[in-house]
């Protein structure tokens, strides 16, 4: 069966500033169906059947997350995570810029299903264009009674507010994101309690990635069963491929297929060296490992043999040194020292002591940090050591 384009179908064909364009291609049919023929329980069941899982990288089952919050009474929040600060990833930004209404419809369906009356879009502070488009889209959705009180004449009500971040990678992590909206430093909180129990302002909160949410209207419209057969994922291709950019393809697409078919193969005169999958936090894959499916956020950086590996190592370690929030010592010190050692490595001044320290730091980051950022900081460097032989040591 040919996979439909669930998210990118109308990109470039509809004007993101006009809700009419989205309505003309069948937009908001899912919301109308929900209001006329469904209730939150039925919608929740469809999402559970669909097997929809988080597209931001962690892959938690969306239906399971919603169910925990839907079961609880009282005030709740729904948050669309559009922070998207992972280097080399910009699929969510393109959803907002190309078809903002599909995202809003998804947010409305999700919020009504879990019983939230207030929703936030946590938008990356650098996405100015996306913010303008989304603000306009929210206004138009209100004018058409898809938002506000008495949605389409029903008893449902919902308000969506854009919360613009201020540039912090860690705010993509849901508890840090919540801290940021609350006016605090964007540091992660200890779990439990999970946001689904005590999230924003202490209330039960669902945080979903924007791409995850954009799938919801299709699921409600066509049923969870059909979705489970033809689910897709957005992939972001970068580096030495012919066609760089975002492409939609079935879940489980292998790296090889993505590079050859979605990316159009290697650029002329460039030989494949390795691919980094999942942004700066991503693992490195050699040519012989490309038959595995792409996991995580879906970003693929293709590196060719002319690339300077030291520049890349500096890019990765510098990024995590800047973005470590400083809450826990292993990450704050580890990312800092790792970057320093890589600087010496790049200058050709690395000592045996540095090599030993580097392996110690990698172990510490992998095993002892408060949140996953520490592990992320070690991933690419670890693979560079193991697979590319960046430092070869004499230690056992």
């Amino acid at each position: 069966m040919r996979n439909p384009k669930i998210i990118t179908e109308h990109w470039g064909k509809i004007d993101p500033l006009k809700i009419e364009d989205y309505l003309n291609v069948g937009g908001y049919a899912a919301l109308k169906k929900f209001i006329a023929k469904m209730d939150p329980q039925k919608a929740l069941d469809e999402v559970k059947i669909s097997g929809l899982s988080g597209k931001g990288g962690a892959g938690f089952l969306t239906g399971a997350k919603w169910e925990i919050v839907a079961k609880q009474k009282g005030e709740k929040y729904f948050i669309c995570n559009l922070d998207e600060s992972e280097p080399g990833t910009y699929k969510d930004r393109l959803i907002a810029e190309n078809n903002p209404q599909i995202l809003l419809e998804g947010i409305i369906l999700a919020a009504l299903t879990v019983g939230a009356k207030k929703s936030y879009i946590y938008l990356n502070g650098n996405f100015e264009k996306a913010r303008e488009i989304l603000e306009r889209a929210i206004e138009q959705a209100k004018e058409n009674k898809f938002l506000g009180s008495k949605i389409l004449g029903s008893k449902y009500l919902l308000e969506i507010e854009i919360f613009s971040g201020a540039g912090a990678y860690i705010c993509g992590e849901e508890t840090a994101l919540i801290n940021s909206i609350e006016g605090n430093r964007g540091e992660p909180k200890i779990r439990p309690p999970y946001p689904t129990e005590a999230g924003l302002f202490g209330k039960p909160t669902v945080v979903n990635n924007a791409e995850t949410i954009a799938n919801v209207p299709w699921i409600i419209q066509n049923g969870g069963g059909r979705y489970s057969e033809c689910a897709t994922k957005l992939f972001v291709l970068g580096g030495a491929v012919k066609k760089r950019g975002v492409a939609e393809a079935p879940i489980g697409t292998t790296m090889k297929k993505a590079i050859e078919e979605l990316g159009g193969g290697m650029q002329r005169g460039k030989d494949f060296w390795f691919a980094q999958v999942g942004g700066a936090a991503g693992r490195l894959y050699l040519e012989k490992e490309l038959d595995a499916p792409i996991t995580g956020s879906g970003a693929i950086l293709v590196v060719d043999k002319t690339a300077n590996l030291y520049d890349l190592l500096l890019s990765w370690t510098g990024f995590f040194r800047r973005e470590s929030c400083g809450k826990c010592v292993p990450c704050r010190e580890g990312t800092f020292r790792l970057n320093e050692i890589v600087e010496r490595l790049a200058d050709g001044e690395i000592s045996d002591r540095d090599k030993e320290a580097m392996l110690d730091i990698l172990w510490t980051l992998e095993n002892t940090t408060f949140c996953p950022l520490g592990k992320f900081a070690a991933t690419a460097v670890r693979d560079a050591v193991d697979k590319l032989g960046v430092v070869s040591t004499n230690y056992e």
Partner: protein
Amino acid sequence: MQKSSTTSKILLDFDPEAANLLPALKKINVAFRYISEVDAEKVAEYFELPLAKVYETASFYDLLETKKPAILEIEVCSGGDCTLGESAGIIKEIENRYRIKTGDEFNPKVRLKKISCLGRCSEGPIMIVNGKVYEKMTASGVHKILGEWG
């Protein structure tokens, strides 16, 4: 640049609630390029928070500055995609042009910063000068653009 608006006027746009602290700080930062101690005190008073709490938040985020910026603030993306482009070469070229080091903060005229990915990878390498974004930069192309900034 909104020279005419004062911090007190900006604050009046916001209800003094926790969820408005970061938006208010961002707006002050856009108006004055940074959040001075005097401004931070005004924010603290308005939101009825300790000054330390305001600084705690203000000092955390990349898009907020708590130190007076240089006349020329240059930022170069150091994400993976831009690095596979020429961003390392661009950084060296700028360092040589002004005889500065990336990250040094003591020069009041010009500062160079490496920044994290802005998600514009297909248009990279990215350079930002005083908030203006330049796409598809090359190492040799920096002089013409920086020449325009004086």
